[in-house]
């Protein structure tokens, strides 16, 4: 990715131009020679143009317009009016937004921790080469590739709140329940979390499995010779060896958690009684159902700032750790 990697190689390529062996890598004559063969200065930009144009239209202009909208009272056909930081004040002072922000954090932390611990446990239990194990792992991975909309519709049916609903029958076997799941304000959040963990854990498992292959086998042998128990081996050899995997998974999952939308929208749409309203479902309602685009945009900008801060903190921590 870095320039210093590509440069020597490129210089070698330029220098190897035939009949000009003396002009290694520099000089005006060499440059002219290269431009005839490998195109002009704008050739790379021509190759990059489609990507940059699409990014400009669908990433950078929208981001700029989110920023401007967040300082405006957006009125289609009437013209927008600058209102300063009023939208931000509205958002930050509204009880609904603060509730939603808290729900989002709870959901993100719960899903991240749950999926990572379960994924790590699964990876430890299913590490190995056998063909049967490969089959079990592939089957366990299926939830990750199932579209989120299907996951949500399927779990809605499984969460059927009467005693003979699918998950309630399972609860009945161990003498618990019946639970209202997504229909009960007390359990709705935990139910969404459970669905999220079900879909997230196998993903984490695969990443952990990839990380486990790079842990030095010799250390396991050494630990065995030193009389370490199985758990000591995991705790003192495996976990430190996977440190970078843990931090990468954490940041990916936390950022994904902060912008959760589809599963909440489909499972509860914020209900019952606002108990599962998250930032994105609130922004969707503000912007597209109530047409308060300015206030919605302010919420979106705050969400962006939160993910940015989170990323920076984790990057700083990682840099400090590696020093």
């Amino acid at each position, binding site marked *: *990715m870095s*320039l210093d*990697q590509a440069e020597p190689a*490129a210089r070698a*390529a330029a220098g*190897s131009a035939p009949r000009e062996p003396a002009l290694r890598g520099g000089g005006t004559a060499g440059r002219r020679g290269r431009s005839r063969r490998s*195109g002009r200065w704008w*050739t*790379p*930009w021509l*190759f*990059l143009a*489609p990507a*940059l144009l*699409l*990014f400009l*239209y*669908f*990433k*950078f202009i*929208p981001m700029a*317009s*989110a920023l401007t909208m967040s300082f405006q009272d957006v009125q289609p056909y009437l013209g927008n009016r600058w209102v300063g930081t009023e939208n931000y004040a509205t958002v930050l002072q509204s009880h609904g937004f603060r509730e939603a922000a808290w729900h989002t954090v709870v959901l993100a932390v719960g899903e991240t921790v749950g999926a990572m611990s379960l994924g790590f446990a*699964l990876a430890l239990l*299913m*590490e190995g*080469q056998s063909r049967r194990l490969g089959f*079990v792992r*592939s*089957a366990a*991975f*299926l939830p990750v*590739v*199932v*579209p989120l*909309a*299907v996951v949500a*519709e*399927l*779990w*809605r*049916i*499984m969460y059927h709140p009467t005693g003979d609903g*699918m998950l309630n029958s399972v609860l009945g076997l161990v003498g618990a329940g019946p639970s209202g799941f997504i229909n009960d304000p007390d359990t709705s959040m935990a139910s969404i979390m459970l669905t999220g963990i*079900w879909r997230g854990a*196998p993903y984490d498992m695969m990443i952990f499995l990839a*990380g486990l292959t790079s842990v030095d086998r010799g250390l*396991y*042998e050494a630990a065995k010779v030193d009389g370490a128990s199985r758990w000591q*081996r995991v705790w003192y050899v*495996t976990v430190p060896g996977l440190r970078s995997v843990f931090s990468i*998974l954490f940041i*990916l999952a936390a950022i994904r958690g902060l*912008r959760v*939308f589809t599963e909440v929208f*489909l499972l509860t749409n914020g209900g019952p009684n606002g108990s599962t309203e998250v930032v994105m479902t609130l922004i969707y309602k503000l*912007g*597209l159902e109530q047409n308060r*685009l300015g206030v919605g*945009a302010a919420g979106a900008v705050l969400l962006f700032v939160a993910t940015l801060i989170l990323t920076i903190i984790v990057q700083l921590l990682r840099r400090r750790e590696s020093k």
Partner: protein
Amino acid sequence: MSAPTETALGLTESRSVGGRILKAVIYLLVLTVFAGPLLALLVGAFGHIKDPTQLSVVPKGFTLDNFRIAFDQGVLKYLLNSFFVVGFGLLLQVVVSVLAGYALARKVFPGMTLALVAILATLMLPEEILALPLSVILSDLPVVHFNLIGTLAGMIVPLGAWGFSILVMTEFMKDVPRELEEAARIDGAGDLRIFAQIILPMCKPALGVIGVFGFTMIWDQYLLPLLVSTDSSSYTLPLALRTLRIDPAVTPGVVMAASLLALLPSVIVFLFFQRSFVSGLSSGALKG
């Protein structure tokens, strides 16, 4: 027994009776928890399910009625919409990624760092955060003034450039030996020729990775189609599931039949290209 592969827990190598039983129990439990619900969906799609409580992993009878009713509700149309979006979306994404990857991997030019930073920055700007302004911009694209709301094109072009695919292509194209390119240049080949006939054919594994990830990414889109579609004629299948469920005349069995159609393409792609998928997962996540 082949060469002993030591694992962290040592459970996999265990040959004792207790270890074997423990392994069997764990595998069964994992299969039940993660594949069980999907099996129930499969059984339910082909069963007489009039009520959510009848969901089960044990088949009782076999019927295609759910699919028949689903098709009467327009599911075939939604499925075709989904295929249209994923087909053209993936085509666009792959073309854009290989072109950008070629420039970033094989060229050194002023402003290259800026281009790389811009591409990395887009990874911090997911659709969710941009949802509201995106819906405004899609209704009136700056400069060209197209209205893409209500069209399938509106669900395709915003996904045309994806930072992840570009970075995967760039990393892979860097590893193609310089000698091949030099030899072609001596023979007088231009950039387009080198790109199409030397670099691209060497990048088939990477094309597999971005193809599989692009497919699942586009197929799983929900918020973007939700913003773009105005009526059921432009629904994709994932979007239509909710409408089906809300319709009181539609039984859960029909919803499950439609859900099965919505999940089959991505599951089939995963099973066929599992190796690309797993290698992309680890490279994408571990390289950060």
